[in-house]
């Protein structure tokens, strides 16, 4: 996190704030990508949703992802209060839910292939939206994994505070994206 230059003049912004700002800007950018993604749904299939969409699976995946946001939140809170072990537990729980989510999407794809393969209009939308999202989930799991790896043998958070916070923010962002993808794919008529 440090940079071998002499200390700078500017003293108004601590590194944490700068990192936060950078991440938020990146999130704004990535959000534009998701907006583009969502808009293509309406271009390609309008608002209609085929009957065969796996409603129960969709709802369960949504709840699962929301729950993983809670554990991520608790990981951050624990880290902030110096509770490294709590943070580690919660990081693991979040990653586990993330991995289950990925398998859930895999199952969803397996089913979807039968009804609407990628070469159909709805399949195009479904596979693209869930595919891009699940890629984000994987990067989230990977990032959380890096953070876990860094704190695995320590008793204090030390300079990993931002690492935890950044990974958790990224995870929440992936959740926000799903908050819009879920109704767009499953619930519209």
């Amino acid at each position, binding site marked *: 996190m440090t940079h071998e230059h002499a200390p700078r003049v500017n003293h108004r*912004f601590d590194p944490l*704030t700068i990192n936060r*700002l950078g991440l938020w800007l990146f999130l704004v950018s990535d959000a534009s990508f998701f907006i583009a993604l969502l808009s293509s749904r309406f271009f390609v299939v309008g608002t209609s949703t085929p009957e065969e969409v796996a409603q129960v699976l969709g709802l369960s995946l949504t*709840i699962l992802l*929301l729950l993983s*946001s809670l554990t991520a939140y608790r990981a951050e809170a624990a880290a902030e209060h110096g509770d490294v072990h709590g943070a580690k537990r919660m990081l693991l729980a979040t990653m586990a839910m993330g991995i289950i989510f990925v398998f859930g999407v895999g199952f969803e794809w397996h089913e979807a292939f039968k009804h609407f393969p990628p070469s159909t209009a709805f399949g195009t939308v479904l596979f693209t939206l869930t595919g891009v999202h699940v890629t984000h989930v994987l990067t989230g799991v990977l990032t959380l994994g890096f953070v876990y790896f860094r704190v695995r043998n320590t008793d204090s958070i030390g300079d990993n505070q931002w690492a935890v916070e950044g990974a958790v923010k990224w995870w929440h962002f992936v959740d*926000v994206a799903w908050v819009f993808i879920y109704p767009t794919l499953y619930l519209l008529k």
Partner: protein
Amino acid sequence: MHKSIQETLKTGWIVIGILAVMTVAEFIVAIAVDDKAILFALLLIAGLAKAWLIIQYFMHFGQLWEHISDAWFGMLSDDPEADGEED
């Protein structure tokens, strides 16, 4: 500025509770409402509300602004001495 861990955790539970209820509500609304446009509007509103809850309470957007705003407005003043001393 620092809240106790209990308070923080309580906020977490409340927010996730609201999110879960809203998600189930979305599901039911989608079954009950037949008008495309009304359904779209309702889901959009619900989605925005859920996103706001996550952004505000889980991602602490306010925190960023708190840190940036001081210097941001400090930057508006043209007096070099006034600006820069606050920390």
